[in-house]
């Protein structure tokens, strides 16, 4: 019986985490954008405006849930739930520490990749259900973009899987540090199984994975509909894209899922490329920094720090680069990222055979 309680506790914990992260994330986004533009951002609600997003949330809860008269009611009402649940369920297979993973799936990475794709369905439902030209245009763009960018993202991931020889997120994470059971080689020649730290991360085990990481990072920006790939919700052209017609908590859930998605894709890149919950500090001689800073508590800290840094980079990029046009977007995806990802996959195979 008690394991059911654990299930619920983990589910509620992850939900609470994504909700709190959305609140903090929106606040951070507003502050980062403000500082980049020499403004101050929210300052009025609470100290430094820290209660601003909470106040916004309270406002959204009180708002009326409007269903447009011409909307397809079932699709319209279900869409935000599907969008959010798809992203939320992705967290199920994410490892947080050496022994800390909600479900240790053999097919973890495949599952995450598949469940994130369900979000596309939700976005299409939202756009179609709204029965509004801006919404449908936004969702069509979103679907075209996400499906296109899944190809370079997928090949970047496969190049990691070929090195790791596993789809289990926890196994991939364990390989990148001192807890690894097989030998870890820095750049394929220096055995760092006992040293660990930053040298054992995937991007340093096989340097071409650095390119794969950049490819995955760019593709993940597109998958979470973040600028410069935010044509699905291009404010200047499409009002707000697929969530134009949403109000109140339904809108809040679309927003939640955007921020959860940001964190989830950052966490996936961290697990696959940047050493997951492993410490960046290596063992140097008698100073066993890596041994001292590995554990469940440390694992949560490291993975949070790494993921939040990537989220910060996402925000930084959003407030710098202008939106790509649809043809530029497809150009980048099919003519630059996809061939590069293929090359990475090829090198991964050669690397696995000859250098590992």
């Amino acid at each position, binding site marked *: 019986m008690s394991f059911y309680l654990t299930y619920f506790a983990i589910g509620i914990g992850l939900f609470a985490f994504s909700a709190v992260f959305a609140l903090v994330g929106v606040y951070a986004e507003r502050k980062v954008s403000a500082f*980049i*533009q*020499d*403004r*101050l951002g929210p300052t009025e609600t609470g100290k430094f405006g820290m209660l601003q997003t909470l106040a916004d949330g309270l406002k959204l809860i009180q708002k009326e849930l409007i269903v447009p008269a011409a909307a397809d009611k079932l699709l319209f009402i279900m869409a935000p739930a599907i969008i959010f649940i798809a992203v939320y369920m992705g967290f199920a297979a994410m490892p947080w520490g050496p022994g800390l993973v909600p479900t240790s799936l053999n097919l973890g990475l495949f599952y995450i990749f598949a469940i994130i794709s369900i979000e596309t369905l939700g976005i299409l439902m939202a756009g179609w259900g709204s029965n509004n030209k801006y919404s449908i245009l936004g969702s069509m763009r979103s679907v075209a973009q996400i499906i296109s960018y899944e190809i370079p993202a997928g090949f970047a991931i496969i190049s990691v899987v070929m090195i790791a020889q596993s789809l289990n997120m926890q196994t991939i994470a364990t390989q990148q540090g001192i807890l690894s059971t097989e030998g870890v080689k820095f750049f394929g020649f220096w055995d760092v199984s006992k040293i660990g730290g930053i040298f054992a991360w995937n991007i340093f085990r096989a340097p071409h994975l650095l390119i794969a990481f950049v490819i995955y990072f760019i593709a993940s920006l597109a998958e979470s509909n973040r600028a410069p790939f935010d044509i699905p919700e291009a404010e200047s052209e499409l009002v707000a894209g697929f969530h134009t017609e949403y109000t109140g908590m339904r809108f809040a859930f679309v927003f939640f899922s955007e921020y959860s998605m940001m964190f989830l894709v950052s966490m996936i890149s961290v697990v696959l490329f940047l050493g997951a919950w492993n410490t960046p500090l290596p063992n140097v001689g008698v100073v066993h920094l890596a041994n001292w800073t590995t554990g469940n508590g440390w694992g949560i800290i490291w993975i949070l720090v790494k993921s939040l840094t990537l989220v910060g980079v996402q925000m*930084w990029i959003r407030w*710098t*680069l202008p939106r790509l046009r649809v043809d530029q977007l497809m150009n980048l995806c099919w003519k630059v990222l996809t061939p590069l990802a293929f090359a990475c996959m090829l090198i991964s195979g050669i690397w696995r055979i000859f250098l590992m």
Partner: protein
Amino acid sequence: MLKDRKVKIKKIPESSKSRFRQNRKVIPESRKSRFRQHIMGILESQKSRFRQMNNKAINGFTTAWKGLSLTIRHLFASNAKRKVIPASDNNYFKQLEGTNTIQYPKQSISVPEVGRYQLDVEIDDCIVCDLCAKICPVNCIDIESIKATEVIGQTSDGSKKMLYAAKFDIDMAKCMYCGLCTIVCPTECIVMTNQYDRTVFELSDLTYKFSDMTTEEAAEKQALLDKQLAEKQAAKLAAMKQKEGGA
């Protein structure tokens, strides 16, 4: 940047051409087939295209990095509060560096004392000549005057006041801030002030009423005027009758 790129695009086909001519000299005419020529041409063009694409990608990354480094500098730059100093100050443009925007309702940039902002009327100095209402291009000034029975006072510049202003309304929602009314005013009683932030909850609050007369007072003055006019009329009639009687 654009200029550089143009030059590069021109250069590549030229160099490929010259290389092609060299090849022509080496290979005897008989052995060189048209097909081979064709293939070579395609290869060369593909090469240059690839080089162009490569340049484009590198250019994309460098320019993106330029932007990113600019924004990160601003992200970590000092975010000091900006001091409110007038535009005439020597330091006015220098202090834009390293400070954030003006926090408006709490701080505001000083504006010239007689800027073209809200209109204000010193009704005591007004002689109700109606010139401002006549010159207004958008008819936002609405004046009703009542003739006084006698001189009712003097303005501060010594003009005699002969009219009461029963109504002196300016609709600031209509006003186009041209300032013509302030130019024609003979007593300079209508001026533009440095007040610009007038936000109201009711549109009617944007109609400023400058008349200091109540409706009762206006009615009283009107009655007095009517009485005086009637008296005058009566006096006129009496005089006419007397004239007729005398004749």
